[in-house]
């Protein structure tokens, strides 16, 4: 049998690891571990130089097992596995040890102990690596169709992008019309174009496209399967409809907070939300602009930003509201140049080239800006209707009393109320905020950790129209990859049963969530358990159906069932090397 030759590559990650963990000492330690024939350190293992050194090390040292001790496998495991493959090593002979997220970043105050822990983690990794076996991946097909959930600008853009490339797109929209929020919006900033014009053309195209199958109004009831083969049930007016797709895109958008009880909203008729203002500002047949029904033109309007946002209960910034305030403030000034228009803000998020320019336009148009603090929020006072806003102006250091005809509240986008249901249906996570959680905020921003499911638009975070469109293109482009390839390879972490040890008890069959295991007659001629002439049934795993959870392995009493890459022997060995006895 070939001798095990393990190489350990320890990453400094700049100072992220190296600043806490004594990397040279760790390399020294690794070198002395059983089966380790080579150890080196890299500044950034994931860089060109680091990868090149890795590949060279594999070849020069004739390594047959590789360990990289660095960040989290959830970011770079595929990168290193590819590098191993390029160097001629089976990608399943690679083990990732996390000494950054799970060590240097969480033990900054105790460098000595952090270093000892890094050594222990690597020792465990080496123990496991010694028992790794090469694996071959199996291929399964991908249906060239996508399910897009949500018919707003993001959903329609994604569906159109894929339909144009030749894929079938099932577009499911829960309301009775397409467009999401845009039909309710007046104009878009910074271009000031009419939202209706933009959204109407997209709606027309989406409805007309031959490869877009519209389900509206409809909701997704059930989703089963996996990338390449999702089986979807949708509830429509006429009843249930089922179809199969290869990929899924979540574009369900967000809702707007109704700021009941804040700043007199719900109590005073002339305190309205930004969305309600948009409706009024739209061209007829909407109510006439800046007309609150009393026939009086607004001589003084106060916008209050961050209403119910950037507070302990809801700490995030909703990204689009500051620009919306500026846009509508300018609009009001345009319609009535003499009017007093105030924007009360905490901070102003007008990032980039265009937005900063827009801010200056607002100032030039005469919009007044006033900064308030979260500790002393504005007060809306009045009898039966809002008459004035009293606010502590932090820049001037004095209290101001602003008489008003209308108060416009800038409330944030909030997660849609059915996010939790959808999250469970698709088995994708939600962030603490309640929005959907992407696989990685930087490296994988438009997909979920679950293969074949993608996300775009305000379902993920508050975003403006251009960002939603860009994300929709990104998500649909990613979805196109497996559909274009026509096949995906499943990770070889599936379960397998050793027939000589199996008693056919069927416990695994019951435990499997995917019905991937069945009992079959043992191989012809192979007699088990001394049962002359009898044919024993043993467990057999369908590796295409198996998703690698390992539940069957834990349930099996004889441990006939094992999981590739997570065998009992590997885990027990990892534990024994740190048990200290």
């Amino acid at each position, binding site marked *: 049998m070939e001798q095990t030759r393990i190489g350990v590559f320890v990453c400094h990650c700049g100072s992220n690891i190296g600043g806490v963990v004594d990397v040279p000492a760790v390399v020294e330690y690794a070198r002395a571990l059983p089966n380790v024939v080579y150890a080196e350190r890299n500044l950034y293992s994931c860089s060109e130089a680091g990868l090149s050194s890795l590949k060279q090390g594999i070849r020069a040292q004739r390594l047959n097992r590789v360990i990289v001790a660095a960040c*989290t*496998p*959830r970011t770079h495991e595929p990168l290193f596995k590819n590098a191993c493959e390029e160097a001629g090593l089976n990608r399943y002979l690679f083990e990732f040890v*996390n000494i*950054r*997220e*799970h060590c240097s*970043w*969480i*033990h*900054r*105050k*105790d460098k000595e*102990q*952090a270093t*000892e*822990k890094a050594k*222990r*983690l690597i020792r*465990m990794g080496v123990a496991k690596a010694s028992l790794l076996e090469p694996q071959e991946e199996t291929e399964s097909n991908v249906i060239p169709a996508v399910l897009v959930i949500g018919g707003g600008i993001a959903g329609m853009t994604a569906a159109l992008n894929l339909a144009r490339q030749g894929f079938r797109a099932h577009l499911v929209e829960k309301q009775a019309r397409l467009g999401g929020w845009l039909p309710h919006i007046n104009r878009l900033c910074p271009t000031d174009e009419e939202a209706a014009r933009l959204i109407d053309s997209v709606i027309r195209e989406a409805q007309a496209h031959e490869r877009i199958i519209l389900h509206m109004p409809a909701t997704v009831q059930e989703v089963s399967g996996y990338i390449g083969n999702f089986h979807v049930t949708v509830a429509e007016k006429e009843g249930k409809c089922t179809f199969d797709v290869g990929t899924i895109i979540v574009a369900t958008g967000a809702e707007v907070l109704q700021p009941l009880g804040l700043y007199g909203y719900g109590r005073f008729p002339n305190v309205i939300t930004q969305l309600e203002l948009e409706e009024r500002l739209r061209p007829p047949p909407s109510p006439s602009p800046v007309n609150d029904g009393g026939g009086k033109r607004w001589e003084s309007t106060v916008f209050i930003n961050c209403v119910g946002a950037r507070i302990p209960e809801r700490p995030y910034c909703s990204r689009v509201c500051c620009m919306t305030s500026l846009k509508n403030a300018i609009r009001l000034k345009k319609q009535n140049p003499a009017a007093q228009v105030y924007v009360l803000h905490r901070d102003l998020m007008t990032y980039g080239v265009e937005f900063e320019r827009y801010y200056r336009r607002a100032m030039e148009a005469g919009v007044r800006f006033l900064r308030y603090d979260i500790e002393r929020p504005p007060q809306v006072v009045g009898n039966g209707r809002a008459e004035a806003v009293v606010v502590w102006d932090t820049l001037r250091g004095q209290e101001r009393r602003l008489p008003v005809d209308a108060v416009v509240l800038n409330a944030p986008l909030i997660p849609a109320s059915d996010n939790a249901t959808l*999250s*469970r249906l698709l*088995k994708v*996570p*939600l*962030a*603490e905020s309640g929005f959907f*959680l992407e696989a990685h905020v930087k490296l994988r921003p438009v997909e979920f*950790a*679950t293969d074949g499911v993608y996300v775009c638009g305000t379902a993920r975070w508050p975003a403006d129209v251009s960002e939603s469109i860009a994300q929709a293109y990104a998500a649909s482009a990613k979805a196109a990859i497996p559909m274009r390839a026509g096949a995906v390879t499943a990770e070889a*972490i599936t379960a397998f049963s050793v027939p000589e040890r199996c008693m056919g008890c069927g416990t695994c069959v019951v*435990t499997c*969530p*995917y019905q991937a295991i069945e009992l079959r007659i043992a191989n012809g001629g192979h007699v088990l358990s001394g049962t002359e002439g009898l044919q024993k049934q043993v467990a057999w795993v369908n590796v295409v159906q198996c*998703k*690698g*959870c*390992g*539940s069957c*392995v*834990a*349930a099996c009493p004889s441990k006939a069932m094992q*999981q590739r890459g*997570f065998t*009992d022997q590997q*885990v*027990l060995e*990892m*534990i*024994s090397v*740190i*048990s*200290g*006895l």
Partner: protein
Amino acid sequence: MSEQDFHPRIVAFCCNWCSYAGADLAGVSRLQMPTDFQVIRVMCSARVAPEWIIKTLSAGIDGVMVLGCHIGDCHYIAGNHRAAKRFALLKEMLGFVGIHPDRLRVDWVSASEGTKFQTIVTEFVERVRELGPTREFVTAHRRLDTD
């Protein structure tokens, strides 16, 4: 050995989709914790065999955590259901043979719960420190056979 000198050996089995990601988030957020635990990654909390826990606590490891997705959120539909039930029973059995059930902690940590990960790990390390090393009873058991 004083409580201060005792560095418990603790293993935390974390599932790839939720608790391992939650642990990563705790790292990204630079939430500081005691060093006395090592994470072992599994795909699902259902993979964690109760036999591992039995071996682990008998082999000189002082505490074990099994951290999975919240019930209802398991990536593999209901793996954590099995984990919940298996370990509920195992905990009782550990208590019956004289291994303190607090040495096994089963909890649910989502991918966005970095703070929760920090809290429960810190709590657990402290609890295990209170309980003392398992080494004492393992070696005591061995000593008997030389009598």
